[in-house]
Each structure stands twice: as structure tokens, then as C-alpha cells.
């Protein structure tokens, strides 16, 4: 066969990696096809890289058989027993499961043909195994799971404390994730699934039910969907409602309000009578921001729409964000708040991925990357210029 390595090795590897990112563009596809047809050696290199790529999916199996140390296994011995991805993420985040876990949260990561897949196992719900002692340490970030039985016409309140993320599975198959310090009221009617977002942020993965629209009402707006996944955020300290759509399509509409006739002569959209107001459609990838008097739709910001829901896994991301925004966001999850002292530190820029369970380690990371120092006091934590 070919000697050692072909000079096209790196290019072929690059293309295979791009192909499996799922984000290859039309232009990239043309470029790749051009490259493949330009020279038979290109095509050969590509096919061979693909073959090694395909084969490597079986690495776990062989690693398991001869107990070799691979990178994936160096963490703990737990890795030797195949676990569903969700459990692994949960363990990785040292999350305490509280309540009854009735949802089978097994995720089929790879559907290999043939029997070459020891990793795919049904996840036995393990409420006790994963349950960590409910520590009195109230500052710890935690994720909880629960399933809600909802008799028709009954209203139930769900809320989370500061530092808690809760995944709730409703009767109809829909899944709601509540972010820190948030509250919703759920009413299941025969003709409508009605959710009221009282405060905070929630992610909805709505089970399709053509006869029962899923309606999320906030103070000002009403969001109607048939089946989709989206994120809604309305914080009492933010006057803006943010809706990020991950999949499908939702309609946002100003709520009819009898109390405030609003005599304003606004340019289009708002009908003062409140009875027949314009609907705003959001598609997958859209982020809509709605305030009393305006609405801004950012179209097809897919990355950001995705980022808007990483909190569900206990992760917050920042990209070149001012420190004051970062701290504000982190404080949402914290009992012991962080305060910035001095305007010079407020606008320092920082990028990063923060795992909320890391608690105060986040502060060390900030102190290590920015010219600031962290002072921990009983009540509060201060960040000042160094």
C-alpha cells in the first residue's frame, strides 16, 4: 500500500472532522468535492481517513476487552461500566438527584449496526444511588428531576430556589426545565396546556398535541406552540422578555389587558384594544426580545439560541462579555452574592465556560485571568482591582 503517510493526510482528516460537525456549508461541500475529484490520491486519503474514523467508534469495546487505559477511562473506575450519557453528565457535574426520577433519561449516543454496542443499556432510574445527602450547604448548585401528575383543571405551582435547576416532566410528555429562582404555574385543561411564567427562566420541550395548544403566558406576552423546544426568560429585574427557539416555531402575542388601555399611537403591531393584536412568529434559531414598547427579533442566531439553554446542564458561557454581566448572571445562582467594586473592573472582558457546580472555583478562574482580587467575607464576596 501507500508508504507511511500521504501528504494529504491532514487535509483528509480536516474534512472528515468538518463533515461530522454537522455544520458543513454548501460552499464547503463544493470545495470538498472539488478536492476529492482533483486527484485520486486525495480521494484515497479521504476514504482511508473515513475508514479509520468509522473504526474508531469501536474503541470503547476493545478498550473494555483488554482493559487498556484510554483517555476516556482515565477518570474513574466508574467508566468501566457503560452508563447512559445523562448519568455520565450528571456524575461529571456531581449533581444531586432529589425526588423521584421516573423519566428514563437514557440517550442512544451511537446506534451502531450489529451487536457492537455494549454501551447502550437501559437506564434504570437510580434515585438512591445518585442521591447525595441534601447538604445544608445551600450555596451548592444542584439539578433536580421530578415527574408531575397533573389532573385536568388542577393548577400546580413549581418553583426553584436560588442555585437550583429543576427538570419537570409533565403528564403529556412535555418537559420543562426551570432555571434558578424561577416559578411557573401549570394548568392542564382539555383544550389547552397553560403555563404561566411568574418569574425567571424556563426551557420548554413541548410534546406535540394538535388538539391542545401549549401556551406560555408571561405578564405581557403570550407564547403559543404546538410542539417545539424553546427557552423563555423574564426576570423581575429585567424589563425584557426573551424567547429563544431551538426547534420548531412559536407565536408570540401581546396579552389582552383590560387594565391598561395604552393610548399610545405606536407604529403598527399593538392594537390598543388588546383584542386582536399582531402575532410574531419565531422560527428555530430565532431569539426574540419583547419589552413593553418594542420588540427585537434576532434571526437565525443558532449558536446563541443554543447557548441560551446550556443552563439546563449547569453551564453558563460567556464570549468576550464585560465582567459586570458575568457577575450578574452568576449571582442568579448564588446565595452569597458577588459584588464588584470600582468601575474599572466592571468592564473587563472575559470569555469562558463556567460549570456552576464548581462554585467558588469560578472566582479563582476569574482572579487568575483578570487583574482583580477576590475578597471573601461572611455575607458577600468582593472583587476589586488588583
Amino acid at each position, binding site marked *: 500500500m501507500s508508504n*507511511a503517510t500521504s501528504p494529504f493526510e491532514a487535509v483528509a482528516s*480536516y474534512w472528515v472532522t468538518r463533515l461530522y460537525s454537522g455544520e458543513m456549508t*454548501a460552499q464547503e461541500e463544493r470545495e470538498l468535492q472539488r478536492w476529492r475529484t482533483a486527484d485520486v490520491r486525495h480521494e484515497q486519503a479521504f476514504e482511508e481517513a473515513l475508514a479509520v474514523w468509522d473504526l474508531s*467508534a*469501536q*474503541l470503547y469495546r476493545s478498550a473494555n476487552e483488554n482493559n*487498556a487505559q484510554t*483517555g476516556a477511562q482515565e477518570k474513574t473506575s466508574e467508566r468501566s461500566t457503560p452508563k447512559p450519557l445523562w448519568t455520565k453528565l450528571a456524575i461529571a457535574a456531581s449533581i444531586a438527584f432529589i425526588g423521584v426520577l421516573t423519566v*428514563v433519561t437514557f440517550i442512544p449516543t451511537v446506534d451502531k449496526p450489529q451487536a457492537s454496542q455494549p454501551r447502550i443499556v437501559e437506564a434504570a432510574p437510580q434515585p438512591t444511588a445518585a442521591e447525595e445527602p441534601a447538604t445544608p450547604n445551600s450555596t451548592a448548585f444542584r439539578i433536580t428531576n421530578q415527574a408531575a401528575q397533573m389532573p385536568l383543571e388542577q393548577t400546580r405551582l413549581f418553583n426553584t430556589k436560588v442555585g437550583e435547576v429543576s427538570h419537570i416532566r409533565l403528564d403529556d410528555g412535555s418537559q420543562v426545565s426551570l432555571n434558578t429562582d424561577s416559578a411557573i404555574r401549570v394548568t392542564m385543561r382539555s383544550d389547552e396546556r397553560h403555563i404561566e411564567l411568574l418569574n425567571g427562566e424556563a426551557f420548554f420541550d413541548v410534546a406535540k398535541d394538535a388538539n391542545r395548544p401549549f401556551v406560555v403566558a408571561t405578564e405581557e406576552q403570550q407564547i403559543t406552540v404546538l410542539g417545539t423546544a424553546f427557552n423563555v426568560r423574564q426576570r423581575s429585574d429585567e424589563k425584557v422578555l426573551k424567547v429563544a427557539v431551538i426547534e420548531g416555531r412559536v407565536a408570540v402575542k401581546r396579552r389582552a389587558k383590560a387594565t391598561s388601555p395604552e393610548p399610545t399611537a405606536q407604529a403598527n403591531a399593538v392594537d390598543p384594544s388588546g383584542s386582536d393584536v399582531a402575532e410574531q412568529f419565531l422560527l428555530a434559531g430565532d431569539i426574540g426580545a419583547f419589552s413593553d414598547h418594542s420588540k427585537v427579533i434576532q434571526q437565525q442566531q443558532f449558536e446563541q439560541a443554543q447557548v441560551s439553554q446550556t443552563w439546563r446542564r449547569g453551564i453558563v458561557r460567556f464570549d468576550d462579555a464585560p465582567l459586570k454581566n458575568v457577575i450578574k448572571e452568576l449571582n442568579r445562582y448564588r446565595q452569597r452574592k458577588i459584588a464588584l467594586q470600582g468601575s474599572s473592573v466592571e468592564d473587563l472582558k472575559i470569555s469562558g465556560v463556567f460549570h456552576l457546580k464548581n462554585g467558588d472555583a469560578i472566582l479563582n478562574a476569574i482572579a487568575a485571568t483578570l487583574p482583580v482580587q477576590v475578597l471573601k467575607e461572611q455575607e458577600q464576596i468582593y472583587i476589586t482591582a488588583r
Partner: protein
Amino acid sequence: MSEKAWVSKARRAASHGLIERLLAEHTFALRRFIRVRLHSEQQHECDDVLQDVYMRLSQIEDLPVKLAGRLDTTRNYLLQIASNLIIDRARRAQVRKQADHVSNTSDQEEVPLYCEIYSPERSLANKRKLQRIERALQKLRPTQRKAFLLHRVEGLSYREISDQLGLSVSTIEKHIAAALSCARQAIAKEEHDE
């Protein structure tokens, strides 16, 4: 109809709606992926694989629940399914081809690597190759190795890996490409040695 049967029927109906929605939403990415993997612009070949993907998805019980856990990586999940189906096809085609050629045993022409890997009787050779790859990966930087294994073995998307390792998505892509190169070199070297 028993309640259980009714529930499972309702589930299936909901599941079909979901599958149609999924395929509609990711159709461009899926078709692109299939075209590249098949190295074919033939519309009908692409349609065939898509049809297989549909069938495969409809066989998965409780698909909505399973997808709920990987909302941001639905597309990767679909690509992975398409990928497996294509590999399976290639393997079956290879078996057919070898059966056809059983009579004229004289042709000692080289079998390309990608055919070898897909042929079932080469599993022993594959095992050796896997060990080879494993050893090669040990020589990599830990983050490179980890990124590669998280994707290939654990099935995480680049974005999930980026979250987990705290690195940018483009860095993750570079790590994975580097690891693949390294694995490929290890295999090529073995062939050279023999």
C-alpha cells in the same frame, strides 16, 4: 383496544410527527452529509438513505424522550444514524461483491483499506488496528485524545465537548482532526511494516 395498546399507538403517531419534523428541519445538513459519504450526487441514492433513516428512527421507542436529552445535538444524532446506515450498506455491498468473486480466486489485487474495515471476516485484523490506534492515541496530548474519544466513543457533539472541556468549538475540531491524523498514521505505518 387495551389502554396500553392505545398508548403505544398514540406514542407512535406522535413519534412519526416528530420524525417528519426532525427530517424536515435537518434535511439540508442530512442530504449534504449523505452526498459526501456516498460520494454521489445521485438524488435517488440519497433518498434511499434518508428513507432508511426514517425507518430507523421509527423503530426507536420513546424517541421524544430520548431526543429531549440531546436537544442541542439532535442533528449530530441524525448524522450518526445516517453514518451507521451507510457503513452498514457498504459492508453488505462488500459481502455481495466477495461472494460474486469467489470463483476467480486468482485476482490478488490490493483491497483498499476501507473495504477491509467493512468486511466482517477482518474483525481480527480490526482488533489489531484498534489496539494500534489506541497506542497511537496515548502519545497525543490528553485534551486531544479526550476530545476525540468523547466524540467517537461517547457520541458527544463538538459543542458538548467544548462545554465539557472548556475549550472553543474550533479548538475541539482541531484536536479531533489531529487525533484522527495520528490514528491514520499509526494504521498506515502498520501496513508499511508488514
